[in-house]
C-alpha cells in the first residue's frame, strides 16, 4: 500500500521562531511528520514543548516561519488569511480545551454555527445539528445554553460542533483538559468512535500520556522537535 497517497497531513522541515525581546525562541525546530487518512494521532509533550504551536500551524491559525504544511492537498503556508478561513470552514473541525461555545446561543445553535458560516439554511442546519447532538448523546439538551450544562456536556456539544460539517480532519487541543478523568474517557471514547465510523482523521494535543493511549499513533514532541513516534500497540504494552 502506498502510504504517501493516503497522507492527509504532511509537514516538511517546519520552523516557528518567536521573538521575545532580544531572544529568539524556537517553538518548532525542524519538524517532519506525515499523518495518514483515518488515523487518530496524538501529539504529546510537556508545556512549552511546542505541541500547541504545532497544532495551530496544522489548522492554519499561525503562519510558519519556514517549511511546508500540506493539509488535504493544500499548502497552508502560502495561503492568505481569507483562504485559511475558507480552508477551515471546508476541511477542518476544531475541539477546544475550554469548549468555546457561544454563551448567547443554545446547544443546537452552537452546533449549527459552522453550517451557518457555510450559508446552509436554518431548517437544514438545525436538523443536522439535532442529529449530531443525538449522536453525542445530548438529545435532551438541545435548547440548553452552555451555562446550563456541565463541562462534559459542553464538550460533547463542542464535539458535535466539530463534526457537524463532516470535516476531513478534526483538531483537538487538550479536549479533556477541563474535564474530570471519568468524563474525559467518556468524551474521548465518543470522539474516537465517531471519527473511526466516518473514516476521519483526528489530531489531538495532550499532555496526558494515559489519554494519548486512545490514539493510533503518538508523536512525542520536546523542545520543538519530534523525539519519538509510537504505534498504539507498542504504547499500550509499555503501560502494562
Amino acid at each position, binding site marked *: 500500500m502506498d502510504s504517501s497517497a493516503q497522507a492527509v497531513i504532511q509537514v516538511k522541515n517546519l520552523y516557528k521562531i518567536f521573538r521575545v525581546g532580544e531572544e529568539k525562541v524556537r517553538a518548532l525546530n525542524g519538524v517532519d511528520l506525515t499523518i495518514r487518512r483515518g488515523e487518530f494521532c496524538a501529539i504529546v509533550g510537556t508545556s512549552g514543548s511546542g505541541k500547541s504551536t504545532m497544532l495551530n500551524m496544522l489548522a492554519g491559525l499561525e503562519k510558519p516561519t519556514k517549511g511546508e504544511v500540506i493539509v488535504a492537498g493544500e499548502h497552508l503556508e502560502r495561503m492568505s488569511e481569507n483562504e485559511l*478561513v475558507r480552508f477551515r470552514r471546508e476541511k477542518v473541525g*476544531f475541539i477546544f480545551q475550554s469548549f468555546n461555545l*457561544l454563551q448567547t446561543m443554545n446547544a443546537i445553535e452552537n452546533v449549527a454555527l459552522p453550517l*451557518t458560516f457555510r*450559508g446552509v439554511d436554518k431548517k437544514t442546519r438545525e436538523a443536522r445539528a439535532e442529529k449530531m447532538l443525538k449522536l453525542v448523546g445530548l438529545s435532551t439538551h438541545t435548547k440548553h445554553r452552555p451555562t446550563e450544562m456541565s463541562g462534559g456536556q459542553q464538550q460533547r456539544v463542542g464535539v458535535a460542533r466539530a463534526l457537524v460539517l463532516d470535516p476531513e480532519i478534526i483538531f483537538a487541543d*487538550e479536549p479533556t483538559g477541563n474535564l474530570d478523568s471519568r468524563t474525559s474517557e467518556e468524551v474521548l471514547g465518543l470522539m474516537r468512535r465517531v471519527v473511526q465510523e466516518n473514516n476521519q482523521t483526528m489530531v489531538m494535543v495532550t499532555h496526558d500520556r494515559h489519554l494519548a493511549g486512545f490514539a493510533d499513533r503518538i508523536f512525542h514532541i520536546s523542545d520543538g522537535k519530534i523525539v519519538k513516534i509510537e504505534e498504539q500497540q507498542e504504547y499500550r504494552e509499555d503501560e502494562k
Partner: protein
Amino acid sequence: MKFSDLLRMSASNLLRRKLRTVLTVLGVLIGTASIVVMISLGLGLQKSSLEQIEQYGGLTTIDVYNWTDYYSSSETDTDALIDDEVVEAIGAIPHVEVASPILSVSVMAKFGGYEAWLTVCGMSQEALQSMDIEVSEGSLPTDSDTLEFFYGNQVITDFYKAKTYEYYWETGELPDVDLMNDSIFFIFDTDAYYNSQYDSSVSAPKKYLVPASGLMAGGVDEYKDNCYYVLADIDALRAQLKKVFKNSVIPGQPSTKSGKAYKDIYYEEVYVRVDDMNNVSEVMEEIQNMGYTASSNAEWMEQTQQQMSMIQLVLGGIGAVSLFVAAIGIANTMMMSIYERTKEIGIIKVLGCDLKDIRTMFLMEAGFIGFFGGLIGLVLSEIISLIINQVAGGASGGYYSGISYIPIWLVGVALVFAVLVGMLAGLFPALRAMRLSPLAAIRNE
C-alpha cells in the same frame, strides 16, 4: 453566510446589551433630530420668502419693456417698438409658455360724486388665465367683443370725491362705489376731458359705460400683483380704443412725424411667463439680445436663495456637530463591543466565518444603531416641527406658511445619512474585528 443569518446575529448582538444600544441610539436620535430641525427651519424660511416673491409677481414671469426713445415719439423708429410680431417672436423662445402684450391706457372713471384715474391693462386671455388671480366675485374678463373690466382689490381706493378731492387714505372711509354692480362711466379721451374742464368751447368727450366682469379677492390693504390695475381683454380694449379715437392718435401711442397715428398698435410692455424658474435667466438673456429691457424677480430670488443656502449651511452645521458626537458614540460602543467579544470573534474565525461576514456583521450593527436613531429622530423632528409651527404660527398671525418645513426628501436623506454615519463610525471597529487573531480564541484562560 446568508444575509438573513447576518441580520439575525447582528440584531441579537444589539439586543444582548440593551442599555448600551439604547443609549447609543439616543445619541444618534438627538443628532438626527437636531440636523433635521435645523435644516427644516432653513427650508421653512426659504419657502416663506419664495412665497413672498410669488406674491410680488411670481417666480417665472418676466416683464419686457422698450425704453429706447419711447417718449421722444417724433424720432421713433418703429422697428424698435414692440408690436404683435415682436410678441410672437418672444413667444417662440424656448421655455416661454405665455407671451402677451400689455396695452395700458389711462382712463377716467365717474360714478355719482366720485371720480378716479385708473390704469387699464389689456392682456391676452392666455396671460390673464396664467396669472393665478384669485377672483372673489364674477370672473376674469371673458373673450367677448364687448369690453369688460376686472378690478384689482385696491382699485377702489383710487376713487375720490369730485368736490373735495378726498381719497380713502385721507378719510379712512371706503368710497361708496360698488364696482361690480354700479353703472360706472369711463372717459377714454382724457386729454379732451381735461381741455373741456378749462375751456368751455371744447365739448366734453363721450362717456362710455363698461360693465364689470369681476373683482380680485383680497382686502383694500392687501398688496398683490396687479392689485391696483383694471384688467381687460386686449382685443376688446383695442377695439374700444379704435372706436373712441377713430384715426387720431391714441394717447400713449407713438405717432408719425406729421403727428398721424400708425396703423398698428404698439405696446409698452410684454408679459412673459416661463415654464420653470431655473430657465428665467436664460430667457431673459435671449430677450435682452433682441434689444429689449427685461426684468424679473430672478435676481431678487437668486439673492434670496443664496442667502437661504448660507443660512441652511450654518443651521445644518450646528446640527451636524451633534450628529458627529453621536458618531463618536457609535464608534465607542462598537469598540467596546469588540473588546468584549474578542474571544467570540476568535471562535467564529476558527470555525470558518468569512472575514467579510465578520466585517458586515459589525457594520450592520452600527448601521442598525444609525437607522433606529435616525428613524426615531425623524419622528421627534416632526413633533418638534409641529410645535414650532404652532407656537410661531400663533405669534405671527399666520403670516408665514410655517417656520419649520420638513419635505419628504429631507426625511429620506436624513435616514440614509444616519445609517451612513452609523456605518462609517462602525467601519474602523469592524475592520479591527476582522483582523483580530483567531489565536485569541484558543488561548486557554
